């Protein structure tokens, strides 16, 4: 058995070993039952007191969303101005400049929405102040926002009929104090003791063996890299993200980073089952997601291990697989494994450059982001999947000819309309965005922007199209990875993806929470022989089929023009 394979098997098993008990813990903790982290209560009481919040105040779905949107809007405005004026603010040891308004617009949205698409490079585009007070702050709060909204959904189905979805502030703060912060502290220390910088000193300097003077970017990186994975954020301290040897110094840290980005998305699914006292439903959803994950992962790894046929033709050995854009200490197998996980859970951090992966790998990465419901980001994974569930319930209901029900509540026209709109939103944003970009590229190649459209693409042909498709998909999915060859720091990409980011984040949160709120209000219908059972393998398969059909219909044409066409243009 080769050691690269054992490495990913071990990573996977450790992920399960952590995620399963974590799911049980989260369900108990959010339900207010006694858990071992109760010693943190004084900290939470202090925070609530400082903020003037009464955490036991019940909220209906409208109040809940209002509170969520208010604080997110505040961060948008505040962060935008800090980014623009970062050059005039303290903690800028490397003397980096302020952001242009369009870049600041894109960046602040990108981090508020948990996407972490980066049109700058961390080393030169931000200061220590903005890295920590804006970027890292939002990494915590955007993950906590997602988790809090998911818990509102849980709450809707715990009791028979209710208008109370819980208190946004309570879920939000507890997500940080009881989950994100403790995990981040442990992980940041693991990274620091393996060689990731954590101090506040500016650039280091040395004279190399050959006599070159080299400046080394560093800074308090470990703290941010921890939460970037725990909170499925993905934005790197350094431009090269987790392929950078200071962000990810060895195979051990690589395992830590890949495990840490999966545990909360997995745990949240199981927590749903435990929280609503339907353990089996949690496991059925978990199973469907797992199957989906492997269907994307196995072909990804196999296409990376096969190496680049064009390089094989030159007679070069590709013993471990395709090496362009990959690091020796990590290897193509662990990079393939990571690239699947980072695209399905919307982390978007990379330990190898996606732009240089094989064409079919690119197709699977894109598809993972387009589906965006196999585990998915912190909290939002289950919200996205909930939309698929509602559509599956509706279609099943039509097939057997009775009013569809979900967990004892009638699913009627209003809920299905919301679900259908959310389903249509993603393909619309991705396709329209890519179409617009292609049009500008072809028809306005010489527009006078920071990067001329004709110079956007780092690769010609089908692959160039994939670069644009990937950027739009990543923005809509709030993923944040990129085919980074794309010259994206200019007004077109900053503004267009900025809008995609914000629509692709908040509508798919508002939709499911609204549906949950509407359903929870309705009279509870006890289960009878005629009830469609949603916690069965059959219904799991039905949901899986719905996911496949919806996404295949929506995205196949675009994928055919990009990665699939590129695949067929390669020598066999």
């Amino acid at each position: 058995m080769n050691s690269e394979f054992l490495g990913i098997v071990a990573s996977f098993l450790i992920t399960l070993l952590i995620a399963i008990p974590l799911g049980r813990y989260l369900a108990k903790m959010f339900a207010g039952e006694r858990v071992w982290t109760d010693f943190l209560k004084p900290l939470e009481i202090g925070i609530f007191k400082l903020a003037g919040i009464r955490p036991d105040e019940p909220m209906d779905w409208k109040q809940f969303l209002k509170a969520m949107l208010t604080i997110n809007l505040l961060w948008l405005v505040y962060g935008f101005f800090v980014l623009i004026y970062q050059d005039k603010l303290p903690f800028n040891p490397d003397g980096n400049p302020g952001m242009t308004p369009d870049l600041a617009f894109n960046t602040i949205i990108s981090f508020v929405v948990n996407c972490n698409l980066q049109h700058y490079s961390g080393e030169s585009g931000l200061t220590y102040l903005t890295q920590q007070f804006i970027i890292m702050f939002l990494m915590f709060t955007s993950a906590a926002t997602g988790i809090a909204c998911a818990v509102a959904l849980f709450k809707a189905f715990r009791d028979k009929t209710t208008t109370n979805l819980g208190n946004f502030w309570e879920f939000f703060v507890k997500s940080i104090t009881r989950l994100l912060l403790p995990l981040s502290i442990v992980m940041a220390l693991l990274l620091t003791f393996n060689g990731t910088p954590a101090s506040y000193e500016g650039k280091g300097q040395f004279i190399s063996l050959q006599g070159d003077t080299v400046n080394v970017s560093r800074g308090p990186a470990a703290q941010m890299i921890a939460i970037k994975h725990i909170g499925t954020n993905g934005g790197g301290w350094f431009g090269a993200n987790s392929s950078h040897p200071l962000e990810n110094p060895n195979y051990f840290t690589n395992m830590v980073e890949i495990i840490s980005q999966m545990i909360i998305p997995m745990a949240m699914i199981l927590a749903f089952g435990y929280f609503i006292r339907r353990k089996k439903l949690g496991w059925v959803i978990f199973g469907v997601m797992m199957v989906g994950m492997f269907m994307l992962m196995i072909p990804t790894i196999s296409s990376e291990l096969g190496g680049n046929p064009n390089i094989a033709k030159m007679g070069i050995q590709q013993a471990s697989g395709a090496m362009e854009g990959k690091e020796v200490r990590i290897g193509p197998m662990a990079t393939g494994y990571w690239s699947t996980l980072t695209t399905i859970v919307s982390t978007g951090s990379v330990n190898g450059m996606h732009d240089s992966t094989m064409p079919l790998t690119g197709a699977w990465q894109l598809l993972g982001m387009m589906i965006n419901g196999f585990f998915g980001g912190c909290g939002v994974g289950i919200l996205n999947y909930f939309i698929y569930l509602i559509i599956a319930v509706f279609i099943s209901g039509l097939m057997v000819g009775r009013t569809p029900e979900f967990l004892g509540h009638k699913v009627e026209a209003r809920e299905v309309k919301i679900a259908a709109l959310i389903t249509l939103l993603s393909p619309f944003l991705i396709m329209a965005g890519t179409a617009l970009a292609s049009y500008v590229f072809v028809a306005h190649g010489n527009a006078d922007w920071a990067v001329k459209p004709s110079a956007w693409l780092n690769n010609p042909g089908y692959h160039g199209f994939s670069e644009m498709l990937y950027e739009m998909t990543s923005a809509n999915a709030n993923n944040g990875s990129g085919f980074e060859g794309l010259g994206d720091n200019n007004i077109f990409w900053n503004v267009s993806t900025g809008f995609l980011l914000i629509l692709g984040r908040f509508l798919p949160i508002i939709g499911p929470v609204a549906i949950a709120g509407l359903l929870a209000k309705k009279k509870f219908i006890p289960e009878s022989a005629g009830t469609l059972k949603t916690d069965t393998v059959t219904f799991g398969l039905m949901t899986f089929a719905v996911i496949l059909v919806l996404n295949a219909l929506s995205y196949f044409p675009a994928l055919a023009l990009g990665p699939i066409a590129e695949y067929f243009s390669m020598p066999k």
Partner: protein
Amino acid sequence: MKKYIIQSIRLTVALTLLLCVVYPLLVAFIGKLSTGKGNGETISVNGKIVGYAALGQKFDQPKYFWGRPSAVDYNAAGSAGSNKGPTNPDYLKQVSDRVDTLLKYHPYLKKTDIPADMVTASGSGLDPDISAAAAAIQVRRIAQNRGLSVEQVTKLVEEHTEKPLAGMFGPGKVNVLKLNVALDALKK
């Protein structure tokens, strides 16, 4: 609505204290106990820092082992991959040129001896490692250039070949900087 705005502002202040001041300072403080004092581990020769253990540096002189091609020329102030796609004709030309350069400096090699990591750029542009195969193909050149025996250099490479994590997980590798420092210290 106004209530939410005020609560939002106050909560943001409270959390900023916790997440942007207490948390990072705590980690930085404990990090002082790590090998590199939270600055990353450095390597020194005669008391002078010659590089970071984790960061690759540029080696193109014939007396040193070479690392992988880099899209940023090993300038550690930044970092990036080439982001070249697998079918890009310019990129394939570049790879083929790298093969020719290697063959020129290692006339004893055949194309099929060359491992992919020596002709492809890394993800970060700062990859500190090469594969054992990539070190092996350079041994004869180094030996000739330094007037050492092939056995001596081979032994040094073997000593510097790192096993997978716990002997089981992930790839093996050779840290180019550490190898070259050891090479400089080697007596004839």
